[in-house]
């Protein structure tokens, strides 16, 4: 064969190839703003030549395949950074809530309440028999205990909010791993004949990135085209077309229906961030707030119970001790701190003095202010030993050291700590954000669609299409000429 019909066949085949190229370009343009879309291109290949009279003649062009301009390395890096960014974002936003509890720039803060409490003791020392001063002390003490209680409640509430978030996150992870497993199945089936399943892969990459925003993971592509996904802690999430799900119960996260908490195996992503807040940040501040409240109870009571009331009574607690363990453990103190019923019922039960009555049943001197002076001096006593907790290893045992300090300084260092932690989370967040932006630019430079480029290509294909059409016209003319030869 050969000759004019061959020319026409070649041109017709080329037109078909041009149309496919156009379709690819058109699809690129259509998806210019589709997140996760990878630019595709038609790979042209010249057809096998035929031999005519010892000549090897080409037989035109065909589209061999449609490939993706993918950049697996950057895609992987983006997934990892997505999980870091989401972890930091989650931490920063939760921390800003915790921080607002300790925000001493406003009024009505714990620092204010503490100052007012100590000052009220000084007022009692100035006028130990004054009922106004005694009532004012009780009022200020109550404001202080209520402030401790509400901060403790808010911290507990933050932990509960985290659990609600984690439950929602776990459901999202289950859904995403299910979808990824399903896509694995489709991709393996679609690529069985060696044609790349470009759009399915884009979908899967996009799901993997979403998964990274919830929980840090590692994904490895297998030879058959499916990906195996694991958490950073090594739990298998997707294997072929099967996914492994999580469930939650209270504080526990169970894996694959086994009743065994796997919280510590989940890091990164929003879930990782929430777990950090729930298991490290909030417990640390709660423990330290408890230490402060517990120390306050013990120090004030130690002096108060040895003092004497104007009516000659002693051994009265200022703060309620029904929940204070003898062991010195202060867990929960910020939550339970409250005034003893003795002083709450009667301000006259405040033991401002240290002089016992002359005889049992007598009263004590009403002008005795020694105990009030001693208690007020606790404010600046910087030889008080207070435990300070650090909880930084997830699920590990918290560590503590004993600080010799004053209660005021201890509280101020707590405020400083939360400021530094929040500042660091904000910094980490902006750093992760700019890293991710850079990576996205790098990925786009390989995989993104550039409209100018597509337009140029379109012009090129259009020209080729016109030329090929012209070939058919010319071949037709040649055929006509031939037919007219008579």
């Amino acid at each position, binding site marked *: 064969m050969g000759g004019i019909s061959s020319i026409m066949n070649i041109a017709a085949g080329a037109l078909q190839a041009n149309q496919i190229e156009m379709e690819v370009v058109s699809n690129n343009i259509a998806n210019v703003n589709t997140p996760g879309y990878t630019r595709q291109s038609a790979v042209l290949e010249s057809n096998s030549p035929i031999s005519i009279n010892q000549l090897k003649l080409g037989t035109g062009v065909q589209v061999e395949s449609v490939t993706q301009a993918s950049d697996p390395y950057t895609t992987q890096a983006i997934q990892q950074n997505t999980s870091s960014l989401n972890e930091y974002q989650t931490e920063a936003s939760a921390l800003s809530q915790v*921080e607002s509890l300790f925000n001493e*720039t406003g009024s009505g803060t714990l*620092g204010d309440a503490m100052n007012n409490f100590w000052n009220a003791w000084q007022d009692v020392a100035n*006028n130990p028999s004054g009922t106004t001063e005694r009532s004012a002390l009780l009022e200020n003490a109550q404001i202080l205990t209520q402030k401790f209680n509400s901060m403790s409640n808010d911290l507990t509430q933050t932990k509960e909010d985290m659990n609600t978030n984690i439950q929602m996150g776990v459901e999202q992870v289950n859904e995403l791993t299910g979808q990824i497993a399903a896509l694995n199945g489709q991709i393996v089936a679609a690529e069985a004949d060696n044609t790349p399943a470009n759009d399915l892969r884009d979908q899967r990459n996009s799901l993997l990135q979403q998964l990274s925003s919830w929980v840090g993971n590692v994904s490895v592509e297998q030879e058959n085209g499916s990906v195996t996904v694991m958490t950073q802690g090594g739990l298998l999430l997707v294997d072929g077309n099967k996914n492994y799900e999580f469930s939650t119960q209270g504080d526990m996260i169970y894996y694959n229906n086994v009743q065994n908490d796997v919280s510590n195996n989940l890091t990164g992503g929003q879930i990782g961030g929430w777990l950090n807040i729930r298991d490290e940040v909030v417990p640390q501040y709660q423990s330290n707030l408890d230490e402060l409240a517990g120390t306050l109870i013990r120090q004030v009571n130690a002096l108060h119970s040895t003092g004497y009331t104007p009516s000659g009574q002693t051994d009265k607690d200022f703060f309620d001790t029904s929940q204070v363990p003898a062991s010195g453990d202060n867990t929960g103190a910020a939550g339970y701190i409250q005034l003893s019923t003795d002083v709450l019922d009667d301000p006259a039960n405040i033991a401002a003095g240290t002089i016992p009555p002359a005889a049992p049943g007598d009263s004590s001197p009403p002008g005795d202010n020694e105990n009030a002076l001693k208690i007020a001096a606790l404010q600046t006593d910087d030889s008080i030993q207070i435990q300070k907790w650090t909880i930084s290893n997830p699920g590990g045992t918290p560590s503590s050291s004993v600080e010799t300090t004053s209660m005021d300084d201890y509280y101020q260092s707590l405020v400083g700590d939360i400021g530094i932690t929040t*500042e660091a989370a904000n910094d980490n967040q902006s750093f992760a954000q700019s890293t991710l932006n850079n990576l996205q630019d790098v990925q786009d430079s390989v995989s993104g669609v550039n409209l100018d480029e597509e337009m140029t290509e379109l012009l090129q294909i259009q020209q080729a299409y016109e030329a090929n059409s012209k070939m058919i016209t010319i071949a037709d003319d040649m055929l006509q000429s031939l037919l007219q030869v008579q």
Partner: protein
Amino acid sequence: MRVATPTVYRDIQQNIVSLYSDLNQMQEKVSSGKNFNSPSDNPVAMVNSLGLSDTLAQIQQYQTNMNTANEWLSTSETALNQVSQLAASAQQIAAQFSSGSQSADVQTEAESQVDGLIDEAIDLGNTQLNGKYIFAGYQTATTPFADSGSGATETVVYQADPTNDFNVQIGPNETVTAGKNGQTVFMDSNLFTSLIGLKQAIANNDQTAIQQEATNLQGATDYLNAQVSDVGIRQSQLQTQGQMFTQVSTNLQNQLGDLENVDYNQAILEMQQKQTAYNVALETAAQISQVSLLNYLNPG
């Protein structure tokens, strides 16, 4: 580097968002007038400012305490001065008898004068401030001095707290004695025994005893004057401390202001810079959006 079309828009968007956030932060600073509005804005400055305001609040309380101490001291001073003058008057009465015995009228008159002085001294010893006896130690509700017996058995008894003084805190580890007990101030001066002794000596017309009591009264006057100057020392101690607190307060307030308050010149300049950067970013975005090959292609 090859640049994809969405990259351009995404970069513009991110830049505008971040510039806007910077601008917003500066505006918040300028409008609140505060350098930091939460601990994380500047943890170190936050902790410093907390420490400073803590100290300021303490100083304020010490100043309140010092007012209480000053009230006690000035009331004590007035009473002690009067008692000291009263001892001097008693000495003058005794002096009338230095030249020998006097008529019965003069004697009776002198006796009743001294009796009056005793009552007056007891009243002054029972001085009250806001309903509390200030020369009673801790027993501020007990009348400290009372006349007991008559004639040869007459004595003035001290029935309040003989050991403790009323102290007020005026510094982190510093207290001042605002009210000394009546035992120390009056009983130890032997004023009452001397006055009663003088009254009995005049009644007995006992010249030697009168002279002896005159000497004792001089001793009491000296003792009381020493008490007055002791009060004066404590008052001037309070004054010095008060002046120091005023000065420290001013310093602390300045430091706190430097930490917390925005330097408006600098902040407004910075805000204007951010504003300019933001405007330029917006204009660039408008320019870039117009650049496209599509603009140069003929539709037909």
